């Protein structure tokens, strides 16, 4: 008995030390550590290094940057909502930020800026590169997310995020195989609506429920497949609709789409396009532009378009969680990254469109120098419709699905799993499994009884 008690004591002691050690370690690190949780391939790594130097020059303290990545907004949200991640800075998309705000997980950055200025007068913080953001981006976010509610608090997203990159969700294609006629199909291209035999099994779509659902709904809109009563909806309303009729219809078209798909991806699409393993890929504009350039470098052509009927426009921004141990470094980082030269470096590295205003970039010597260094004509660069689309009412912004999210995920799972084998076979298999398990169990019991009998007779 005593021994067990002793073991228990030791176990508790070790557990306690482990917990304490982890805890103490964390506290100690708050002053000089910045934890960033960002999308994969979403920053110029050089910036992290130069920011460290900048941080040291302002505060005189060495900074350690812990940089981690996620591949979909959902992965990130799960981590944040479960409280698994203690980070200073995250960079999700608009609807994800909305969801985090409705859970009260983000800090008001406008207030944070002024309180930091007060708290650290010796650093002369100005955070003036926040003003570099394209006013149209602020406007769009302001009009769509002006009243996000948490408890009885009403918040405007512009206070809770600083835009970083923005772009559209469209279709990246290989003109060698995709004909003009295919292109006229719009979203139908992803369903091979024109029955181009070359495209069967060569189409990739995102393994991300929001993006794929958005495309499915817009495809139905384009081809008149929407359930009754939704014909008059705008693109904005359609991509955020989670009514059960809509989900059913979307499931049907997504299941049908499986016939022509090469697969679902979030990370290998660009490579597959460049290596001509796939010819059509649902892509975010920045990824697409990046792939187009990479392809050009090896002498092949790719192109990107958003169908005329409408498309999704999205904004990714920096936000600071309430649990952030080091909000000062986080704010300074956001400020640093929105300088015209940093913004241009990032754009060059990842292909996305910076949220820093076009005219500020055009008039900044450093930014222009970086642009020319990368062999771009400034006029071509800023005039490219794929990079700087004109955002009108045919572009819709995604909102958080809220409680309906689970049903959409279930629909998505059915679509992903479905079509593989017929339902009748599923039931047969399950029944078969049960029968086999039953038979084996019966056999085992029988053996046992036999044995008992034997023992009794002996």
């Amino acid at each position, binding site marked *: 008995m005593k021994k067990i008690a002793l073991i228990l004591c030791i176990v508790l002691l070790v557990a306690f030390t482990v917990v304490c050690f982890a805890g103490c370690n964390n506290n100690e690190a708050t002053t000089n550590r910045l934890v960033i949780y960002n999308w994969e391939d979403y920053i110029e790594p050089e910036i992290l290094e130069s920011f460290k130097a900048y941080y040291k020059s302002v505060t005189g303290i060495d900074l350690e940057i812990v940089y981690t990545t996620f591949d979909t907004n959902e992965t990130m949200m799960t981590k944040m909502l479960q409280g698994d991640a203690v980070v200073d800075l995250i960079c999700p998309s608009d609807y994800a930020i909305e969801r985090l705000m409705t859970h009260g997980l983000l800090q008001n950055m406008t207030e944070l800026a002024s309180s930091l200025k007060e708290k650290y007068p010796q650093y002369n913080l100005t955070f003036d590169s926040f003003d570099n953001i394209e006013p149209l981006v602020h406007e769009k976010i302001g009009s769509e997310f002006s009243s996000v509610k948490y408890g009885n608090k009403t918040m405007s997203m512009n206070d809770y995020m600083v835009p970083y990159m923005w772009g559209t969700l469209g279709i990246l294609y290989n003109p060698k195989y995709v004909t003009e006629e295919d292109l006229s199909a719009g979203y139908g291209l992803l369903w091979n609506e024109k029955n181009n035999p070359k495209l069967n099994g060569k189409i990739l779509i995102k393994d991300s429920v929001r993006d794929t659902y958005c495309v499915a709904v817009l495809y139905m809109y384009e081809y008149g497949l929407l359930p009754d009563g939704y014909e008059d909806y705008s693109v904005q309303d359609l991509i955020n609709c989670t009514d059960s009729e809509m989900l059913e219809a979307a499931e049907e078209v997504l299941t049908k789409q499986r016939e022509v798909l090469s*697969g679902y991806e979030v990370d290998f699409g660009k490579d597959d396009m460049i290596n001509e393993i796939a010819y059509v890929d649902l892509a975010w504009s920045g990824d697409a532009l990046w792939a187009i350039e990479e392809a050009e470098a090896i002498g092949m052509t790719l192109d990107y378009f958003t169908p005329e009927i409408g498309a999704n426009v999205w904004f990714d921004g920096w936000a600071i969680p309430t649990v952030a141990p080091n909000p000062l470094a986080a704010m300074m980082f956001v400020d640093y990254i929105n300088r015209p030269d940093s913004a241009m470096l990032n754009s060059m590295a990842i292909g996305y469109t910076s949220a820093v205003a076009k005219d500020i970039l055009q008039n900044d010597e450093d930014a222009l120098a970086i642009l020319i260094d990368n062999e771009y004509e400034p006029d071509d660069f800023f005039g490219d419709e794929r990079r700087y689309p004109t955002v009108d009412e045919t572009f819709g912004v995604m909102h958080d699905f809220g409680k309906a999210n689970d049903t959409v995920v279930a629909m998505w*799972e059915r679509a992903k799993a479905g079509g593989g084998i017929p339902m009748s076979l599923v039931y047969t*298999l399950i029944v078969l499994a049960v029968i086999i398990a039953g038979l084996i169990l019966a056999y085992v019991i029988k053996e046992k009884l036999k044995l008992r009998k034997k023992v009794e007779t002996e």
Partner: protein
Amino acid sequence: MKKIKPFFLSKKVFGYPYVLFMLIFVIMPLVLILVNAFLDTDGYLTLENFKTFFTEKSSLVVLGNSLLVGLITTVICLLIGYPVAYILSKYSSGKILVLLFILPMWVNFLIRTLATKAVFVAMGVELGMGTVIFGMVYNYLPFMILPLHTVISSIDKSYIEAAEDLGADKSNVFLKTILPLSVSGIISGITMVFIPTISTYAISQLLSNGTIFLFGDSIQMKFEQGLYGVGSIMSIVMLIFVLISNFLMNKFSNNMQRRTIW
């Protein structure tokens, strides 16, 4: 009163790190899974997760998919593995062959699978059910061969000789002595292949570009989407499968020890 041995001198003390490890990394997660199964997304007690899992069509489809892939993989592994194990134990060169079979297992399975995918893509094979099953068989074949090899090579040769002496021809010797004597190997091979097959996720995802969606993929997706409750229940279902197969395996090996010939 019994005298307590000096604590630090007992040999058992070397076992404690492992006990601690088990507590933190085996028992704790199991408890967490069990707790999560009864919580909804806001952290309140609920039974809704069970209802969701057992009434949702998608979970049945996914389970069906997995059972099908598992069944096919196991049958193919058995059909390929048994003759191989038989040959391996019959000839003295078997040892080198066993080594050749184990060799790929030293390469991480993700790397192996990615390489397999690259080969298929280079050959122009369309990724789908076929390639997934190939990948599964490739990955789990050693798990079938090894238990079979162990059991078959430990069969006492005198049984075979006795059968031959009593006039059994070759097929009879195999069907009436070798096969029944290797049943425990077959059972353990089947469980070693079937259970991991239905719970893997990376292989199916990589080798089908995500178009074949199995139970393991579904669990991963549930956790990724923050549906911890349903994900936990699916893990429990998986665990029940493991427990049942473990139970059966024990039953059969017990039976085998008691009566060596059927």
